[in-house]
């Protein structure tokens, strides 16, 4: 089966006032359809940078990203934007929602941006379906400010999956949440993967979150240091992953 996402020898260098900083130094990886992959590593290891390159939010200094068979890095901005809109979904740690739109409108945002009428036919069904998946159908008309933090993040997940993207990228989605709400969010992500075959790439520094993934790629100093296979499980005990990470000095 063709991988849904492939990264080939990615590097990313930032220029700062004091010189250049290499955030990524030749990262290669593949993600299979329906797979749940976690990117872990200490602060500054390059995991968020890698996610942004994989999702087409930024361009690598060298290397190539191929998403669903399309080389992302060579696309111009408009094409890359359309690719993101059609093939990807994003969940971020903060600023997940547009405050001036209701929960339903936030979920429908990718359709609205594509010029579709999110209130009609298939699009409305998709939005309702996504809101049901995260148990927020009853609060669809509320503004983000009227929702709890956990609910806001669930709206973000609904938005990310409403367009039925080829791949969903989540960057520390539980970072701003308490333990139990964070687990709830991870369960919703896992459900979308297990029940709908949604491919997910999750960035986290939390082993408890990483344990929900099928596979963990551990990064350090801009390189993939270790790949840890966990496999699909109904329960998500963190202990085995923590033990493996401990061996890596984490």
């Amino acid at each position: 089966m063709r991988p849904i996402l492939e990264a080939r020898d990615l590097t990313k260098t930032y220029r700062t006032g004091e010189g250049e900083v290499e955030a990524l130094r030749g990262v290669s990886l593949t993600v299979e359809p329906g797979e749940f992959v976690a990117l872990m590593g200490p602060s500054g290891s390059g995991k968020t940078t890698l996610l942004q390159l994989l999702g087409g939010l930024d361009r690598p200094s060298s290397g190539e990203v191929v998403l669903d068979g399309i080389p992302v890095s060579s696309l111009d901005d408009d094409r890359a934007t359309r690719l993101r809109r059609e093939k990807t979904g994003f969940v971020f740690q903060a600023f997940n929602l547009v405050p001036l739109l209701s929960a339903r409108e936030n979920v429908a945002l990718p359709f609205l941006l594509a010029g579709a009428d999110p209130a009609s036919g298939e699009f409305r069904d998709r939005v309702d379906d996504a809101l049901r998946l995260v148990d927020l159908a009853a609060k669809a008309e509320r503004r983000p400010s009227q929702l709890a933090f956990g609910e806001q993040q669930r709206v973000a997940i609904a938005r990310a999956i409403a367009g039925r993207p080829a791949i969903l990228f989540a960057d520390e989605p539980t970072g701003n949440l308490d333990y139990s709400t964070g687990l709830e969010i991870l369960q919703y992500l896992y459900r979308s993967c297990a029940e709908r075959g949604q491919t997910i790439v999750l960035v986290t520094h939390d082993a408890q979150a990483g344990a929900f993934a099928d596979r963990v790629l551990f990064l350090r100093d801009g390189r993939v240091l270790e790949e840890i296979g966990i496999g699909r499980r109904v329960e998500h005990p963190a202990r085995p992953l923590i033990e493996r990470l401990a061996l890596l000095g984490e």
Partner: protein
Amino acid sequence: MHAPARLGLRILRRRPLRSALTIAGIAIGVALVFAALSVDAAAQSGARGYAAQLDGRSDLVVRAFGEGTLSPQSLSAISSTTGVLGTSPQVRRTTFAWSVAPGGIVATRSLGALTVVGVDPEADRAFHDESVVAGAALTAADDGGVVLAEPWASAHGLAVGSRISLMGGGGERTLAVRGVLAASGPALADGGRLAYVTITTARALFALPTGAVDVVEVRVDPAVGVAAVETRLETRLSSEPYLLSTTADDAAALSGASRDIGSGLLLVAAVVLFVGALLVSDALAMSVAERSREVALLRSAGATRGQVHAMVVVEALGMAVAGTAAGIVLGAVMATALVPLVASISDAPVSGAPLDPGALVVAVLLGVLVPVVAALGPAWRAGRVAPVEALRGSALRPRPNGGIGRSAVEGAAASVTGTTVLILGAALTGASSPSGAAPIAGGPAATFLAAVVVALAVLLLVLIAGLVAPAVLRVAGAVVGLAALPLRRSLGAEMRLARGSLAHDPARISVAFAALAVGLGLVVALAGIADGMRRAGEAWIADVAPADYAVVAISPVPDSFGADLAAVSGVSTVTPLRLFDVAIAGRRASAVAVDPGAYARLGALTVVDGSRDAAFAALQAGGAALVPRSVADRFGLRVGDSLGLRTASGEESLRVAAVVAHGVPGAAGESVVVSQSDASRLGISGVSMFLVVAKPGASSALSAALSDVADRYALSVVRPSSIGGAVTGALDRTFGLLDALAVAAVIIAVLSMLDVLLMDVRQRVGELGLLRAVGLTRAQAWRAVVLEAAIVGLAGSVAACVLGVLGATAVLGLGTTAGIQLAVPWAPVGLALLIGLVGAVLVSVYPARLAARVDIARALRAE
């Protein structure tokens, strides 16, 4: 310098564009004030200098009232009044001159109107320093000689030895040019169209009685004082009507027109100040809100509230100093450009725009004080930030519907402070003048009151605009949405984002909306008022002079001249009018003598109280007068009342037969209409103007034929509309000047919108990053910002048009000239809509570009 204060200055450098915008706003306000005060100072200085040159060493001038003269007894009474050191009597009358060929035959070439000044040369030299540039000065014995002013003489090719012929009541008199005076001192009067002769020659020329004089210049003993002599003269001169004026009065009269302009300039400047103060206050409020976490860090690190206050005030002070410096330079340029405009309106010469120290001090004070006062509110709020609250990120976030009132109040406080400085400064500058007169009509107290009323009215408008902003923006959004309906598929997302952004936080944008509404509203209101007054002027002239041509005399001519005009081929009727001065209840007024039958047949005058037929019949019968509404209001007259008219030659009591809408414009307002027979009993004869009606189908050569006849008598042929045109021309120049300044308010408002949009984009970088991440293209981001600005521009300009039309209606309704109806000034309204929409779209281009170029990865990382 303390650390927080240093931080205040660094903040300016960190946000160079926003700092530059606010500095530009301050600079425009300061420039406007500096230019207005400098031009006003130049006009006042010009008027004072001009009056001083004209009056020479005289302290008081006594003038005969109307066309009367002062008798030798009055002259003697003046000379013998205690405190009078000397007098110089003059005969001063306007007449016509012709050049005379060397052979002594009167040429047909008219030299036009000329003021003949008959003087006692010895007495005159005690009052004026004459500078003879050619020939000799006038001597008492020189009965057949004349001395001319240089500009007029050279304009007509006259030199020493030339001869000119003058027309007077005593017939024509040919005089030889003995000398030419430099264009200085009294020779500046009447544009230099002056002919000095001996007083004896002048009396003979105008057939005046022996010893009669028109003007007496008076030198006063400083130990006694001008006021004391004025009082004594008022008791001693009781037999003849006269006008008494000091040099200061003359300067005030000369600067009257420019003073009105100065007053208008300062009131417009007050509005601009308000809009500017609003911009400064809003910019600082946004700046403080943006830095709430930074403020909290400073507070948690030990900065006192006072130090935080200092940080914000120093930031404001930095912008104030830079803005003031730029404003002074810009103001000097503006003043130079405004001088010719004011000179075209002023009666006295206005040249240069001196660097007036008073104007400089006032402008610098304003430029520094207004931003600092506007900063006090934001500084106080910054000082109140609790470190914990700010670190949570909740402090000082803009609250929906909460910002406009606060900004308006803070802007108003700064504006009132500025206005106070402005008025006090202007009053002090005026007080330092020799006349002691404030440079603002009605005195500083009246103008201060007017400025405070203006500031409060603008405050009210801003508050109303702020309150209605959410609703108006929603409606404007819906209108733009409807207009863009055919493009819904391609613009739907951008429209939703733009409208959502406005609905989410209307307070953020309502300041820009209000500033735009007030600035553009001012332009529309001024245009509406000017248009109303212009149309009223035209209707007025059409009502009182319904003729094809007006043949105008500079001084009364015999009635018989009308027969020559009537004989011109193509002329249907010729109706004579005679304008003259009268006193009503001891106050100066104007009157016009008409042939009632002929004037009635023209269809002239609209009777507003009484019957037209009965009124003209009463006029024909004699002993009656038709009173213009303005005169009836001024003197409390009604139909049937008795009206006492007094001239130098007599007094008549007439019955008010009707009140008419308008009267012929005279020297002292609209004229009371009387019959020629009643006028003759008041000692008034001759004709000032002939109204000529052409026969139907008269050829276009009629004007030239009339001019041929008119030239023979030194009359001029004009279209009645051009009389109105002269009035409306001056009106257009005045309002054009005010409009130019109102545009400054619009520029500041547009800068304010740019500032708000920039701030908006910066505050929403995270949101924009998110939108871009989930599929918003760069073009969509660009269009969303431009659409948002377009909605605000449309809403602001529509509100401006409503405010402007309402304001103009109120001003015209409250004005002293009753009956002016406002017609919606469509051209300015259209222009305001265009400026609002195009201006908003243009200033949104840069913020939209920033929004489109948001670096997604960096935006998400930063958040």
